[in-house]
Each structure stands twice: as structure tokens, then as C-alpha cells.
């Protein structure tokens, strides 16, 4: 079984992002970038399945500018076997990402595609589902547990009401929740070895995919600052206000 893991390079989750003054986006110069956190869970799960002898190869793929390669290197350092970097500059929407991944899937013919459930930059939560639709494959989103059975996966999903378990036939897409596992650290010798693992470079433009933007980003702004309200003088007044003015109790 072959597993393709899609990883994305995003602003590190500890960095306090800043909005550009002209409203055209977020400042990313000299900002620490990392792999999208749930994508690390996706890689970890794929590597675990491989270590359990149920997969022969784990391939990490990323789509983005030159430096996006770092995320593939990181996946290689924690156990992926080889990497693919599809080069494209600028913002690409999930639909275009899904279409590029579709081409990669057609070329690589994996049995499973894993990725994080959502990227922490655009917070779209679309790519995995879109890829499933394009491929007409089963999808198991927000996975917190994956069991590999013969030609099938049993996946526990985190849903609003609690947990849901589905069984999906391979080939399939799984999007991973942070609760799925605890990603391992890349050890120093493995980082060294990862430097020698191959990363295939593709150009998005060569794949024959329409990546043009369908959504115009008009402006990006900081969240509105909340205005201070009033001070109440007693608990009784507070409860009255909550009941009659704010109508929340």
C-alpha cells in the first residue's frame, strides 16, 4: 500500500500575525514558518502505518513556492520515503490545490491520501473533501483514529456531537485531526538522512490544471477592537442587565 501525504507551509502557530497596512494580506517576511500542525499528524499516521508493515511507501507532497520544500524535508526527516514539490507562487485556493493533487494522485496512484483537516492560515477546511469529490473516492474527515483493515479503513471522526466511526474502501482520502496522534520529533541523524532523500520538482503550470483565482481577496483587516462596556455597581444590577438588556439569561 502506498500513502501520499499532503503538507502545507504556513506561518508558525506561535507567531502573532500582523496585517499589512494596505490591507492586502498578512506580513510573512522574516516570520517563522512551519508545517501546518495537523499535516504533521497526517505524516505521523502514515509513517506509523508503514512501520506496522501495512504500507510500503510514504510519499510527501507539497504545493507552493520554493521554500515550501522545507515541509517535505521535515516529512522526510520523520519517515516519509520521498518527496514531491509542485512549484507555484502566490495564493492558491483549495480547489486549485485539490486539482493539482488530483494530477499527482493520477501519476503516483497511491491507495491512500492523508492530509491535515484544515490549514491554520486560511482556515478553509476544504482540500481533502474536494480531492475526494474530484477522484470520486470515499472521504473520512477529522480523523482521530485510523485502523487499517484489509482493503478498508475504519476511521473514527471528531464531530460536533461526539465521535463517529465510518468504514471506507481503499482508495480513500483521510483528513487528520490534531488528536489523531502525537507527531514524533525529527532526530538530528534523520534530518541528515532526509537531506539525501529525493524530492521531485514539478511545475504546476506543466500539469494542465486551471489554478486561476476564483475568489478575489478585497481586503484583510484586523479583528475589530472591542469597545469597553459599562461598569455595574452590584450583582443585582448585573443580573438585571443580563436578563433585560442583553437578554442572554
Amino acid at each position: 500500500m502506498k500513502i501520499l501525504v499532503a503538507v502545507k507551509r504556513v506561518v508558525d502557530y506561535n507567531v502573532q500575525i500582523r496585517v499589512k497596512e494596505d490591507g492586502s494580506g498578512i506580513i510573512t517576511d522574516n516570520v517563522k514558518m512551519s508545517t501546518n500542525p495537523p499535516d504533521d499528524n497526517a505524516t505521523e499516521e502514515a509513517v506509523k502505518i508503514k512501520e506496522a508493515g501495512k504500507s510500503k511507501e510514504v510519499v510527501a507532497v507539497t504545493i507552493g513556492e520554493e521554500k515550501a520544500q522545507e515541509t517535505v524535508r521535515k516529512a522526510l526527516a520523520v519517515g516519509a520515503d520521498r518527496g514531491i514539490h509542485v512549484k507555484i507562487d502566490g495564493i492558491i485556493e483549495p480547489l486549485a490545490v485539490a486539482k493539482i493533487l488530483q494530477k499527482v494522485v493520477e501519476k503516483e496512484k497511491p491507495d491512500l491520501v492523508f492530509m491535515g483537516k484544515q490549514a491554520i492560515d486560511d482556515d478553509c477546511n476544504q482540500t481533502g473533501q474536494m480531492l475526494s469529490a474530484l477522484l470520486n473516492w470515499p472521504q473520512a474527515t477529522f480523523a482521530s483514529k485510523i485502523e487499517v483493515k484489509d482493503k478498508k479503513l475504519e476511521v473514527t471522526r471528531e464531530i460536533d456531537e461526539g465521535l463517529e466511526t465510518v468504514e471506507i474502501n481503499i482508495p480513500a482520502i483521510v483528513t487528520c485531526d490534531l488528536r489523531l496522534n502525537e507527531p514524533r520529533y525529527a532526530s538530528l541523524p534523520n534530518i541528515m538522512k532526509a537531506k539525501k532523500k529525493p524530492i521531485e520538482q514539478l511545475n504546476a503550470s506543466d500539469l494542465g490544471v486551471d489554478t486561476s483565482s476564483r475568489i478575489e481577496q478585497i481586503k484583510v483587516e484586523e479583528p475589530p477592537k472591542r469597545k469597553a462596556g459599562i461598569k455595574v455597581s452590584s450583582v443585582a444590577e448585573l443580573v438585571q442587565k443580563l436578563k433585560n438588556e442583553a437578554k442572554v439569561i
Partner: protein
Amino acid sequence: MAVLLIAEHNNKELRPFTLNAVTAASQIDNEVHAIVIGQNCTEAAKSLSELPLVKKVIHVEAVHYENFVAENFAPVIVKLADNYSHIVCSANTFGKNLMPRIAAALDTSQISDITKVVSSDTFLRPIYAGNAFATVKSKDAKKCVTIRPTSFDSCESSGGSAPIEKAEACEEFGRTKFIRREEIKSDRPELGTARVVISGGRGMQSGDNFKLITSIADKLNAAIGASRAAVDAGYISNDHQVGQTGKVVVPDLYIAVGISGAIQHLAGMKESKIIVAINKDGEAPIFSVADYGLEADLFEALPQFLEELNKLNTIQK
């Protein structure tokens, strides 16, 4: 053209967020049609038809719709999509799972989790976990939009009488099988989805004192939160932590008790509809975001608060 709203339900009742989604849909276009897909879900369809904002209900039944599998649902919507300019659903796990599958099939770039309808093609949505907001305009002919339920009021739930039309089911997808759902029943609502959250901070002084908060939470059917300081001090476990590194919550009512209001904490709750702060220190930064601030010793204020709540004959839950 009309807006098609996908209703979320449990085959009997509508899920509450559907009412918020209807409100958002009606802000895009008056002509809101709502679709209910399920098995033995006549009652849910009926509830939907009673929403005054809904002009028409489409009701689709089949055994394989019992468990809301996105692979089965998507083709139903795609088949009907020709008649609609927008397809709308709430951005909870149901909608998040389903909508992109529809959008990709329609070759549409989806707009997720909107908090405001600016116009029929332009929307406001949070990015970077709400640390920035993007105004985005869809250039697609057909728009797939998921809405953040807590950003829209719920619509009127009775008085309407929209016609209910039956529509044909599609074939079962077949390669995805629902096994089971374990609804986590807790006496208390989940921190992430609760309508009311009451949080304690370092000012609580001990884990024991959190029972003051628990008794009010019981009364208001609220979830219990905490600041990182309270978690670090060991008063409460870290799954209660609200803030940048904990959970981001957007309840109707957030009550911060003995929390000074470090930015990390504010980042996790400042989108709440109504914020109440109870703190001894009148200069605490939490007051700068509170709608109602009470400068008081929490050990006196909380018992009084409970007493006042007990006096009320009705409490919204």
C-alpha cells in the same frame, strides 16, 4: 435565483444551528429554499417549513441518508444546483464535511465560515484563527458558502408554512459505510459549542474554589473555562483552557471571573457576544473588553450571583 440551504437535523428535529444558517441565507437572497435529506425525516421537513424565512422545502428520503454520509448527500445537491445561485450550510462538522464535496463537483471555489454577508457575492470571514478578517468576493457563477452559526442570529422558528416538495434520491455511494455514532453525553455543554461559558482565573486562588463557578455553571447550563494562569497553577485541567493556546470560544455569554485578561486569554474569547468581567482590580485589562464589568471580590460576588439567578423564574438554557 434562489438560495439553497442544506438543513442539518437528526431525522426528527432540526439542529439548532440550521436556524442561524437560514438567517444568513436570507441575507444573501430572500428566496430561501431549504433541503432536508434523511430517512424518516418528515418531522424535520415540517419544522423547516414552519420557518417564516423559508419559501420552499425540498424533502429527500432514502435509507442510505440515515446517517448523513457526505458521499451520499453531495450528488443530491449537485443535481438540484442548476436552480440555485448559492448553496449554503452551517460551518460545523456536518457542513464542513459536506460542502467542499459539492463545491468541487460544481467546480466552484468555496467560501468557508463566513461571519457576515456583505453582498450576494462578497463575504467577511475570519482567517488565522480569527486574528484577521478577510473580505472576499466570489467570481464563480455558483457560490458555495458555509456560515459561522454563532455570527448570525437564529431565525424565527414558527409561523411559516412553506410548501414541502419531495425530490428523488440518488444512488448510494457504496464505498463508505457508517458504523456508529457515539454522542458524548456530558452533564455540561462542550466548551467549544456552549451558549454560556463561565471561566475562572488565578483570582480563584485554588482548585477548590472552582465549585463557586460550577454551581453557577449548573444554573446557567454553562461550560466551564479557565485562563492559562489557572491551568498552570493546577486549579483545573488544561482541557478547560480558553485562549490562544487553548480553545477559542464564541458563546452568547462569557463570564470571566478573577481573570485579569492577558492578551492570550482575550484572543480566545473576545468574539463572544456578551462579556462579563468580575474582578477585584478595577484596572484589570479584562474590563477593556467587557460589556458589563463588576469590580468586586469574587468570593462575595459569586454567591450573590447565584442567589440572584435563583430569584429569576426563567433562565434561558
